[in-house]
């Protein structure tokens, strides 16, 4: 089923904006509506073509009018921010995430035209701890989640989505749990983190990181909005990088900090408006998180184009990170040792 009228929330963000642009380029779709409180960035607006922008707050009942009057049949909820790139105001984000989703779903439930709902969620719903399995599958319940925080928001959002799916069984609902995004054009907590010349890490811990290239994230969201697949899907690139390995690949220097001192270091960085160190993020840096993507490949029919390593290397080369440290001396020494004088 090709959707006729698509509504994309969060077009002010990277994923929402670019997704609206991609959908607008599809001639089979009649209308693409983008909703957000802030207009998309200028460079995205240029690519958005015939997509229309509705300046509205999804927390406002007005959104219901937009949906019914336009006869929206596919809603892509891409506005939830669970990993804000920079320091953000916690309460505002919680409002946007949880209350916004509630309002949007309430509006969808009232609109008989809605046939399809795609929700962008996050892999953070699994939490990260020493007691969780190494590889999360879609059926794993979260463990050791903080009592508040963005991960908790995402869990609540997913609970509302499940409730909606129960009340409107005629709507096919796909929830995509995206791994941390990376790429040269996207601005996330990780891209900012690895751009620091000296990267604070947790002393004695090394996280397993599985990433997702931003292009792959867009592709999977597009496929989900055009397709029919129902259920929860983990979305992540193949392969794993250790945090220490990623730091070395980016040519950064790690700064191991005691776990107890990391919140303080995080506050310092927050204060400098560089990067957000939420407790969720610190836990992620402790233990990391790897997702099982069998269901994505087998049932959903999507295989990410970039592996984690390729995505990370693309980010490093594409965002023109200047390596702080390269072992050229050692490499030269090795060549000299292995070459015999003739």
């Amino acid at each position, binding site marked *: 089923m090709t959707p006729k009228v698509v509504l994309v929330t969060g077009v002010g963000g990277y994923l929402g904006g670019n997704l609206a642009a991609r959908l607008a380029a599809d001639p089979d779709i009649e209308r693409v509506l983008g909703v957000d409180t802030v207009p998309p960035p200028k460079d995205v607006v240029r690519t958005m073509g015939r997509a229309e922008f509705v300046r509205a707050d999804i927390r406002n009942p007005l959104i219901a009018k937009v949906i019914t009057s336009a006869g929206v049949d596919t809603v892509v909820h891409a506005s939830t921010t669970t990993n804000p790139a920079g320091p953000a105001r916690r309460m505002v984000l919680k409002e946007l995430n949880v209350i916004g989703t509630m309002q949007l779903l309430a509006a969808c439930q009232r609109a008989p035209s809605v046939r399809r709902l795609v929700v962008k969620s996050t892999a953070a719903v699994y939490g990260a701890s*020493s007691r969780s399995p*190494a*590889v999360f599958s879609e059926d794993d319940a979260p463990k050791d989640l903080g009592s508040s925080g963005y991960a908790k928001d995402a869990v609540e959002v997913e609970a509302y989505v499940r409730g909606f799916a129960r009340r409107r069984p005629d709507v096919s609902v796909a929830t995509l749990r995206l791994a941390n995004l990376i790429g040269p054009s996207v601005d996330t907590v990780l891209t900012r983190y690895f751009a620091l010349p000296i990267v604070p890490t947790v*002393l*004695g811990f090394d996280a397993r990181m599985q990433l997702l290239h931003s292009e792959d994230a867009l592709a999977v969201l597009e496929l989900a909005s055009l397709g029919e697949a129902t259920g929860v899907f983990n979305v992540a690139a193949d*392969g794993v990088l*250790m945090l220490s390995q990623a730091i070395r690949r980016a040519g950064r220097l790690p700064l191991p900090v005691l776990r107890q001192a990391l919140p303080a270091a995080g506050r310092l960085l927050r204060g400098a408006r560089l990067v957000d160190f939420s407790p969720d993020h610190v836990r992620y840096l402790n233990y990391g998180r790897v997702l099982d993507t069998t269901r994505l490949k087998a049932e959903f029919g999507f295989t990410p184009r970039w592996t984690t390593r390729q995505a990370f290397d693309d980010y490093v080369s594409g965002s023109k990170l200047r390596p702080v440290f390269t072992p050229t001396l050692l490499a030269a020494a090795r060549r000299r040792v292995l070459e015999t004088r003739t």
Partner: protein
Amino acid sequence: MQEARVIPLQRADRRRRVPTSAAPKPDGPIVEPTPLHPTREHPPVSAVRRGIGDALGFAVRRLTGDYPIDEFGFDPDLTERVLLPPLRLLYKNWFRVEVSGIENLPVDGGALVVSNHSGTLPLDALMTAVAVHDNHPRQRYLRMLGADLVFQVPLLGALARKSGQTLACNPDAEQLLNAGELVGVWPEGFKGVGKPFADRYKLQRFGRGGFVSAALRTGVPIIPCSIVGAEEIYPKIGDLKTVARLFGLPYFPITPFFPLLGPLGAIPLPSKWHIHFGEPIPTDSYDAGADDDPMLVFNLTDQVRETIQQTLYRMLSQRGNPFLG
């Protein structure tokens, strides 16, 4: 200046037959092209140089982050070059480990190695890993399942993951077994590793049989493994429960030399070890859903436990002095 001479190619050929295709056929003897930039001859490098070169290559690889990692954080490059060598020293020269029954381990494909646990510190797990890697014809790695306490401890947790360990839970075990890995499990857990010296070689309860259901669900054989010698490395004659509770540890051992001699007491006694891999117990003959039958799981658990216990008794009766073997 010399003028370039034009030398017609394949003149004889053209005269003899009509060309069927435009492209010349590559028949006739293949002439090795002379390289424009001859690669410099590599005379054999001396062993020392190669060693240094290898080490430097390793350092460069590590510093540029150019090495593979699996989903569980296993780092074969680091394990092979940094973690195994010191363990091998301990294995060969300190505990003088003897291994038998290595032919019971499958050449490839998944299997679950189930072993007794002892020694106050889980050195037996590490030695089993060395034994498998160094004696197996394919030099397979034993992927060990560890307690969550291991992964909470800074440095130790990270190293454990890098050496191929993962959390002892069914999803992880099944994932590894499905991937055809050799998985090692010590179902006695802390009850086994921290049992008093008086109870040596008496197997404790085998958990809740989670390892059996993992094997049943993946259909891999269970290989009972008996380790003799590990009980004597730190004879635990007492337990400071309050101190243990203070540090959040399952026990705080008193051995004849610890904490009396301080850090010196942490040196394990040089007992002579023997590791025996028993006959595999197949689990693929049961029908699907067998892991849901608690009775079957209990029976299999008991069978594995009894096999290990009997083997231990047999090995102990054949052993002379614990330190001389």
